[in-house]
């Protein structure tokens, strides 16, 4: 009986990844406890550069949500938020994080923390969803601290100058509050520097992801979701850029040597939608066992901010936030997916329809059917959730995915009717 190798090749740079992530958590926690620096919570797509320029230590609750999901602590904590009136049908990052706060249970305990750090201010951008605002407002009420942010456009076709201007004005209006809490004035040079570092980090991250375009792919989606930590929580810092240079060099070596993340790669898949955090390892093993690389994803690419430009900080930050996939309408989303499919030489597309995040679920308005038609590629939709494992069936996902790979095996035409 064949016993396929069912794991991805480990990355040497992972040790450095662990170090910088740990240093980040310990740093924010200390600042929060000892008041050595102002602490802000920020949405993962920013506008973090303003906070960095003002000397804030920044915590990203979506990252905490992902950690809760990956450690499966989420499934223990969510219930407390549901009981408080936060529905099981809304973002399970939100419910698992608020539950974590209520129960004082967090995977951050490995860094000596009993809860996520208390913030002096929370800063959101609704370009991804309204949920982040409601999420932050819970803490604003708990801690009696300001909750400010950008109320963005959604479902944008082409990003217009008027969109950008409106977001810039909102960002400018935020500055006095951010300054008051930080106790210092925003310095133009520091903002430019912060945007420059974010841009560098984003460019490096894009190059990292591009190594999966090689055949075999040097990186898979499953590894990518771990490696992208610094692009989310350390964007705008020197540490993040240094780490990605290290990772990129390692992946480029793989490409040069013709080595893939998997021992054998028969098929290449594009993943749209959220990761199923609590099943990341199981799914990675399943795909590896099927000799199938998940080579690219909308999710990992969401932290590539093409438009950032240190010479034009606020307008470029505004544009970057508006151009993101999640903020766009179906038409640009479809063009984007078609481009990715070609760039990464993909054999099939899997849509994860995430029960509690309609914002990152793109199978609800006919996209899979349209893509199947325009690209002539097999597409599959699987049901699940980012954190709420009650919405995910192992057996159903397995059958769907195995069945999809069988479909890709492109069986020769079957023999004609035998028992007719």
């Amino acid at each position, binding site marked *: *009986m*064949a*016993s*396929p190798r*069912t794991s991805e090749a480990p990355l040497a740079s992972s040790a450095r990844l662990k170090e910088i992530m740990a240093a980040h958590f310990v740093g924010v926690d200390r600042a929060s406890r000892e008041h050595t620096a102002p602490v802000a919570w920020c949405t993962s797509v920013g506008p973090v550069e303003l906070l960095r320029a003002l000397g804030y230590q920044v915590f990203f609750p979506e990252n905490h949500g992902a950690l809760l999901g990956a450690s499966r602590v989420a499934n223990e904590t969510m219930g407390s938020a549901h009981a408080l009136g936060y529905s099981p049908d809304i973002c399970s990052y939100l419910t698992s994080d608020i539950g974590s706060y209520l129960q004082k249970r967090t995977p951050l305990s490995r860094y000596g923390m009993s809860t996520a750090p208390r913030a002096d201010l929370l800063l959101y951008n609704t370009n991804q969803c309204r949920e982040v605002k409601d999420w932050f407002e819970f803490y604003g009420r708990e801690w009696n601290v300001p909750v400010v942010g950008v109320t963005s456009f959604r479902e944008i076709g082409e990003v217009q100058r008027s969109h950008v201007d409106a977001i810039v004005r909102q960002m400018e209006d935020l500055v006095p509050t951010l300054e008051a809490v930080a106790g210092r004035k925003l310095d133009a040079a520091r903002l430019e520097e912060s945007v420059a570092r974010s841009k560098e980090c984003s460019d490096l991250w894009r190059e990292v992801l591009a190594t999966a375009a090689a055949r075999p792919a040097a990186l898979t989606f499953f590894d990518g979701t771990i490696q992208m930590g610094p692009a989310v929580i350390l964007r705008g810092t020197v540490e993040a850029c240094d780490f990605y240079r290290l990772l990129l060099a390692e992946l480029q070596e793989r490409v040069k040597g013709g080595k893939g993340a998997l021992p*054998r790669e028969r098929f290449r898949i594009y993943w749209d939608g959220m990761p199923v955090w609590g099943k990341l390892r199981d799914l990675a093993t*399943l795909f590896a*066992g*099927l*000799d199938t690389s998940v080579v690219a994803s909308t999710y990992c690419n969401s932290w590539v901010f093409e438009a950032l430009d240190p010479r034009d900080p606020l307008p470029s930050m505004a544009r970057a936030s508006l151009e993101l996939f999640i903020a766009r309408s179906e038409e640009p989303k479809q063009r984007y997916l078609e481009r990715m499919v070609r760039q990464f030489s993909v054999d099939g597309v899997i849509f994860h329809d995430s029960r509690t995040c309609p914002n990152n679920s793109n199978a609800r308005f006919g996209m899979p059917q349209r893509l*199947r038609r325009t690209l002539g590629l*097999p*597409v*599959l*939709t699987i*049901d699940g959730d980012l954190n709420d494992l009650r919405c995910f*069936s192992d*057996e*159903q996902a397995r*059958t*769907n995915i*195995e*069945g*999809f*790979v*069988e*479909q890709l*095996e*492109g*069986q020769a*035409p*079957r*023999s*004609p*009717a*035998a*028992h*007719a």
Partner: protein
Amino acid sequence: MRAPLYAGIDCGSWNTKAALVDADGALLATAVVRTGADVAGASERAFAELLSRAGAARDQVGAIWSTGFGRHAIPLAGASRTELDSHARGALQYVSGPLTVIDIGGQDAKIILVDAEGRRISHKMNRKCAAGTGSFLEEMALRLDVPIGQLPALARDAKEEIELGSFCTVFTGTEVLGLIRQGKRPADLARAAYRSVVKRVLEMERVEGKVVATGGVVAHHPMVVELLTKAIGREVIVPRNPQEIGAVGVAVAAREAGAPSAEAPAGRTP
């Protein structure tokens, strides 16, 4: 019967089905047993029953392949395919593509599209809830206070068209109780339950080409086929062994893979 023979075992949530084909692909026998809580035991029983029905000996069987939800838990089997592959393959033994397979089982329903060359082009499975499956019919039989086996006969007496509006099985159960209180006839409600199954299934995916209906619900509840035909507006083909079609399909896959020593595709080893 020309040896070697090839066996397929389809381990479903309610029943385990088995099929035996010979070296020429001719179907020799099928068997159905209850799955229960012991998947491996059920597959042994189904296989033994299969051999006895075919009058074949164990050592004539060149390969045993499995399919269905329990496919990875059958020690007898040398390799497996998903039920998606097996149902498509099974249906193709009776009808050539392009076709749509509508499979309605105890716990799930699936729609599989196959092109003119016999290649599977897409599939949809519904297992988020019991709506559109055999479990839903069991629940309705319970509400109407009849054994599930009597539901088909009851529905035959229907006179009034009743539409059940709820999506979820629990809501539908409450809806049915309300309708009983209003004095609606159980026969009309039984037929409404079948109509609901058909409606839910057809909401999953568009059907294209010839339509083949398979699965335990199709085998035991002929009204589902009648209503499907009416809803789709064209013939619905029911193969000779609608419930065992997955087992037939995977037996055929084992035969197509050839020699018993053929290495199982990576990741499919049970």
